[in-house]
């Protein structure tokens, strides 16, 4: 049994042979990272973890091997590099989509409730698009049209942050194929600014 597996066992639940939420919390505190920190999510992405809150042995091995870490220390040191890698534009879109899927806990679930979306947005985009996230979260809580957000809308928001100048939104055209929720969002902001 190699060191990666040993490390796995330190956090895994004996009976299920998975790292469960409790284990992850322990891991986080050992890594000196809050469990809502984006880097944990990035770690999950690197592992291609399927179920939120759980790491399987296979996923663990996959992730740590890719990071070339077999001790806690090496793992801790690998996190900044991991973050840089994820933030590369080519990877970030993938990571962003992954984050959404990671939150789909029920089978056949396709959308995420507003509350969770707000939290997710904060984690994933809070540091790069502070203003947009703040406005959008406020809007989501006020509006009544949608009780859940689907993948299409989620990705739409990502494109919005990357392409539309904020807060003037001069280059936004509601007659294009933007998701309706963003049309409404833009209108809401315009009214607020008036």
């Amino acid at each position: 049994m190699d060191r990666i597996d040993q490390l796995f066992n330190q956090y895994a639940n004996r009976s299920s042979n998975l790292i469960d939420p409790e284990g992850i919390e322990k891991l986080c505190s050992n890594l000196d990272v809050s469990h809502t920190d984006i880097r944990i999510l990035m770690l999950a992405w690197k592992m291609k973890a399927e179920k939120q809150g759980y790491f399987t042995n296979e996923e663990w091995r996959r992730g740590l091997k890719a990071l070339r870490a077999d001790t806690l220390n090496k793992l801790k040191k690998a996190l900044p590099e991991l973050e840089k890698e994820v933030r590369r534009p080519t990877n970030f879109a993938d990571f962003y989509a992954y984050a959404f899927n990671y939150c789909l806990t029920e089978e056949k679930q396709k959308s995420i409730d507003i509350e969770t979306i707000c939290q997710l947005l904060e984690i994933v985009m809070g540091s790069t698009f502070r203003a947009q996230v703040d406005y959008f979260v406020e809007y989501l809580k006020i509006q009544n049209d949608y009780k859940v957000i689907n993948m299409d809308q989620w990705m739409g928001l990502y494109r919005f942050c990357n392409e539309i100048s904020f807060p003037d939104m001069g280059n936004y055209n509601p007659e294009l194929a933007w998701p309706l929720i963003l049309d409404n969002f833009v209108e809401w902001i315009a009214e607020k600014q008036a």
Partner: protein
Amino acid sequence: MSNQKKRNFQIEAFKHRVVVDPKYADKTWQILERAIHQIYNQDASGLSFEELYRNAYNMVLHKFGEKLYTGFIVTMTAHLKEKSKLIEAAQGGSFLEELNKKWNEHNKALEMIRDILMYMDRTYIESTKKTHVHPMGFSLWRDNVVHFTKIHTRLLNTLLDLVQKERTGEVIDRGLMRSVIKMFMDLGESVYQEDFEKPFLDASSEFYKVESQEFIESCDCGDYLKKAEKRLTEEIDRVAHYLDPKSEEKITSVVEKEMIANHMQRLVHMENSGLVYMLLHDKYEDLGRMYNLFRRVTNGLLTVRDVMTSHLREMGKQLVTDPEKSKDPVEFVQRLLDERDKYDKVISTAFGNDKTFQNALNSSFEHFINLNARSPEFISLFVDDKLRKGLKGFVDVDVEVILDKVMMLFRYLQEKDVFEKYYKQHLAKRLLSGKTVSDDAERSLIVKLKTECGYQFTSKLEGMFTDMKTSEDTMRGFYGSHPELSEGPTLIVQVLTTGSWPTQPAVPCNLPAEVSVLCEKFRSYYLGTHTGRRLTWQTNMGTADIKALFGKGQKHELNVSTFQMCVLMLFNNADRLSYKEIEQATEIPASDLKRCLQSLACVKGKNVIKKEPMSKDIGEEDSFYVNEKFTSKFYKVKIGTVVAQKETEPEKQETRQRVEEDRKPQIEAAIVRIMKSRKILDHNNIIAEVTKQLQPRFLANPTEIKKRIESLIERDFLERDSTDRKLYRYLA
């Protein structure tokens, strides 16, 4: 002898020259010159044509053609110069007469001279390419008389003066005018145009400019147009009498420009007499005149059409948005039909059925009918009224006429699906209460709707008719197999196929024992022959005829709703009942029960029940008893209310909501259809195509379309293109 050559018989010209006496030419010329003088002096009778011709011929033959030609010109010129002086000396009115006279004389002389000189014309002049005699005679006249400075201007002014006089009503010598102007024409087209026509047109232009200004200040539109028409006719008449036919178009253009084109806007918009006034007051003659005059000028009809269109739109808008007028839907629609008839008549009587005006009429109606969101409902109510009683006594042909007119209005509707919903509701009520005036009329209208909108529109409606028919057969079968039921109450059941009829929730209701027994028997009979089906009694849609005997022996047959029947039957077993008792016994929901009791107890002339206290509204503490003193002059009294009515606000909202719900799947179906065939399409094009496809039924909202697209994306029917965000892809 035998070698004698054969010689052709030849005629040889004189081998020797004919010597002509040089003096011969002079002598000959003198003869001719003298002859010309005599001709001009009207003294030609003594002349011998043959002799003169031969003289001219000889001169040419002996090579003296030039002398002859020159002499002719010189002599004629001298004569013409003389004539000019004479003409110029003429005073006043005789000037023109003199000119005309001299011209006629000249023509006669010229002809004679030409005849005499014909050989020269055909030989010498041909070969030397000089001007022929006749044209030369004209040119000489032109140069020496017409263009003689002392005559030129005076002639033109005299002619124009005469035209002016005629325009102001004086009578002039038209024959003389014709003659003189024909002279111009004969002298050549350019002479006519330069020396007469152009100045004539300019003067006319000035004249009409002034006159039109006078008229427009002093006349109303109708009168002005009459005057303009009169002037136009006059000018055409003038041309016919004494001008070149080619001038007609030019002079009419002048009149059209000065009298019509320059004042178009002012005429059309004239207060209290312009186009709008004429339309409002059916002034067919004036309108026809305006149409005929304005069509002659560029943008004339366009101007008329535009003013008519904006008037129609304004009038229509006021008509449909006036709350007073929306009170009675049948009145509302009748007004629309009347207005359409009126303008149809205007266009066919006064505007020659001009298609562009028809189109303007249609587009205006389409515009304002849709300004009122209740138009579809009102048109259905109008039809309902007609099919219910309005067509009673009408002949088939007239029925068709009315239905066709209704179809015309229907075509203007943008929200045809709203109409369909209401039509279905109203039709259901008509069929179930047996209140159709004519089955044929109903069917005829359905056929028209099918032709207009396709099979889907009417398939459900036809299903309703089928159900009615099938129910009749079912009833026959029911009573046929239960002969013992022919005593006792008669049950008539209509079995409605869900889906064809407007959906109504089933309302609970306890039927009286006699009735429910029958109903159960029917149910088992029906399900016996149709296993697998489910029957639900729609107690809120039925009616009943009850025979009632009142306190003083009055007998009446009451036509009531099912709910009302349930309530009334209770009084067979009790004299007095409280609201709560009635509610408990019938289990009818409160709002329906209150309405039902109200119609039984609170309506004058129909109050078979009395209520304590006597207030207008039904209170839960009220009690009820039979009105033994009930009277009515009719034996049959109708109390039930199953008639289609204009919806209340909340009902209207509900219907609108249902319509919106129904539109969603239609929009989705359209999107899927389009994407299936195109595979990839960009956003703007999808919106455009979907809107176009749905246009026969309703006007699709782009935001709604977007919502449906997103819903389809979520359900994996479509996806966004990964590189170009404006594109959508169809997912098979």
